[in-house]
């Protein structure tokens, strides 16, 4: 866990007090909506279809059990008893009343939580691998660097009014679980030929109306330079990014228009004068930030203890969950456990206050009080002793949090869609719910292997449909909901955008279409371990297109 110091606490507390005053002035009529809107957005407050929505940052997806209890309290006291974990390691509450928001903000601030950097044209919540610090395949903890960037960029006056929002993701693992190549800036810690650790800097990725995979403009950046180089990227974007057209304002358009090489030259020109200045990172500063992260005092345990072996041998349901939701940990005798927020028929990413409190208790009991949120909209207990896995599973099972579908066809990423969102054209959640029912058979889901479905209710692509193995994009046609279908996308280190397979299909047919695609895959794959993506790469889109449209 990262432990806040007095500076952090003061910032969050003062911000909550400022916001209380702003809300009072708005409610009294002293501020107009035009004056108030940018203020509320800077605190993560949107006005959606039915109510205000409060988005709270969970920096690098990490939160304590106490913070989770606070979220449960906010859900129960100020909302309708649940919250929605998003694809950017935030949580959203959908039914907050403006008049009660100052109290909610105070309660959140007491737990070190806030909505800063979750809206507006600033650097948004910096995200990373939900397994950071515990993943066996990482070379160091990327949260330290995310935290250094967060401290520097939070309320940074030069970058509070960028041409558009700006999203940064950091990974330090061989397998990219943070989707860095579809972010405005992606940072990948890796080791160069000389054995030194530094960053690959990727810019100009993003989804939305004009999707791009990011381009590498710096294959290896020494760690000391990460702050100055990101500053140079932001300054270049701030100077050259378009402000005349909201649809062309993201950095991805600038990088595309200039070309990655020319953009890199502009960044370099901006960077050279500042690289050896105050932003050059002193190792002592990095060490001080790293020192705020507290790592558990792990017991000296061995892998695969007798309790675990016995449970796996005697209980098929536990064994299935273990194989699906439990991952190797850096520390012997420990495991990383993913909690699926994708039960059959449930809205993806939602958790009730009761579930949040129970998860907090389980985190205290089994995970040193720490919880993570991943961009797939699931939760993680990052430090579970393997001997405790069976007990944890029984508790999760009673809470509806042990669906063994992580990474499978029913582990669907979906935006809130037209059921909540004022930008959406179509619904996402009911489509996801129907698909989880169609693929309720876990044996089938497991036999399909890794298969990610992503659903967005509009072109803004909050459901990341472009990088879904199967992507669904809702479009409205003459007042009816239709869905474009793409296949072959992926968001990891081999990120690629999916390919459209044909005309959009109506709401009533979209689940049938996905079933057709899955059936085609089962017929086309050459062996059971050829995953959907590999089949698409091998045979192309055409066989799937034929299957879907032959009878439509």
């Amino acid at each position, binding site marked *: 866990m990262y432990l806040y110091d007095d500076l952090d606490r003061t910032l969050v507390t003062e911000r909550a007090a400022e916001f209380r005053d702003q809300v009072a002035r708005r409610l009294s009529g002293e501020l107009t909506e035009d004056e108030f809107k940018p203020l509320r957005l800077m605190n993560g407050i949107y006005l959606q279809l039915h109510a205000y929505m409060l988005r709270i940052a969970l920096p690098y997806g990490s939160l304590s059990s106490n913070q989770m209890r606070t979220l449960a309290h906010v859900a129960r006291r100020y909302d309708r008893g649940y919250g929605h974990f998003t694809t950017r390691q935030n949580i959203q509450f959908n039914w907050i*009343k403006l008049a009660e928001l100052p109290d909610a903000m105070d309660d959140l601030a007491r737990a070190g939580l806030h909505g800063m950097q979750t809206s507006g044209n600033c650097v948004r919540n910096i995200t990373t691998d939900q397994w950071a610090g515990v993943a066996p395949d990482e070379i160091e903890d990327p949260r330290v660097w995310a935290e250094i960037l967060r401290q520097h960029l939070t309320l940074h006056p030069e970058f509070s009014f960028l041409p558009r929002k700006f999203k940064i993701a950091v990974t330090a693992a061989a397998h990219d679980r943070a989707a860095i190549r579809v972010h405005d800036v992606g940072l990948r810690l890796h080791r160069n030929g000389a054995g030194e650790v530094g960053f690959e800097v990727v810019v100009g990725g993003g989804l939305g109306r004009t999707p791009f995979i990011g381009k590498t403009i710096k294959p290896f950046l020494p760690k000391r330079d990460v702050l100055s180089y990101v500053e140079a990227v932001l300054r270049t974007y701030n100077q050259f990014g378009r402000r005349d057209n909201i649809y062309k304002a993201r950095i991805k358009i600038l990088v595309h228009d200039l070309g990655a090489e020319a953009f890199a030259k502009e960044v370099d020109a901006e960077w050279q004068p500042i690289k050896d200045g105050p932003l050059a990172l002193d190792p002592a500063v990095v060490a001080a930030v790293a020192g705020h992260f507290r790592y558990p005092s792990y017991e000296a345990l061995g892998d695969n203890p007798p309790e675990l072996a016995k449970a796996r041998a005697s209980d098929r349901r536990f064994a299935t969950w273990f194989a699906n939701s439990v991952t190797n940990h850096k520390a012997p005798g420990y495991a990383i456990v993913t909690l699926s927020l994708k039960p059959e028929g449930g809205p993806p990413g939602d958790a009730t206050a009761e579930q949040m409190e129970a998860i907090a208790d389980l985190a205290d009991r089994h995970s040193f009080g720490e919880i993570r949120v991943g961009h797939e909209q699931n939760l993680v207990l990052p430090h579970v002793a393997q001997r405790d896995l069976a007990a944890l599973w029984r508790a999760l099972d009673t809470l509806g949090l042990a669906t063994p579908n992580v990474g499978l066809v029913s582990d669907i990423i979906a935006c809130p869609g037209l059921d909540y969102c004022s930008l959406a054209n179509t619904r996402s959640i009911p489509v996801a719910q129907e698909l989880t029912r169609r693929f309720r058979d876990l044996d089938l889901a497991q036999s399909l292997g890794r298969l990610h479905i992503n659903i967005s209710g509009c072109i803004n692509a909050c459901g990341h449909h472009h990088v879904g193995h199967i992507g669904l994009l809702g479009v409205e046609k003459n007042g009816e909901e239709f869905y474009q279908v793409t296949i072959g996308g992926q968001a990891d280190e081999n990120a690629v955008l999916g390919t459209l397979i044909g005309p959009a299909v109506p709401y009533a047919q979209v689940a049938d279409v996905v079933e057709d695609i899955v059936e085609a895959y089962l017929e086309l794959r050459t062996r059971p371990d050829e995953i959907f993506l590999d089949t698409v790469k091998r045979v192309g889109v055409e066989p799937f297109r034929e299957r879907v449209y032959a009878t439509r």
Partner: protein
Amino acid sequence: MTSPLERKLRISGPVVVTANRLGDGAVIYRTDGGRWSTRLDQAIVVTTAAAASTLLAGATADGINAVGAYVAPVRQDADGALQPGNLREAIRHAGPTIALPGVI
């Protein structure tokens, strides 16, 4: 950016003026006497662009009770009851089409 009042309103059927209530964001409709109601059946229905513009101007001027006023289509069902004119408005009127988590 053209303000909503400066844009030429084009309507092809009956419309109401709707907004969100300032204090809690609830969906509200413009009613008689410059008031607001959460009930669609109390909304003033107009059928011409001129009348809709006048209704919207009054609603937009009320910056203390309502946020983001705009013109929305409605229709009458077989029983003569007023219904939202499209899916977006239907969801605003009736709430999400899904069961809310934790609500049986």
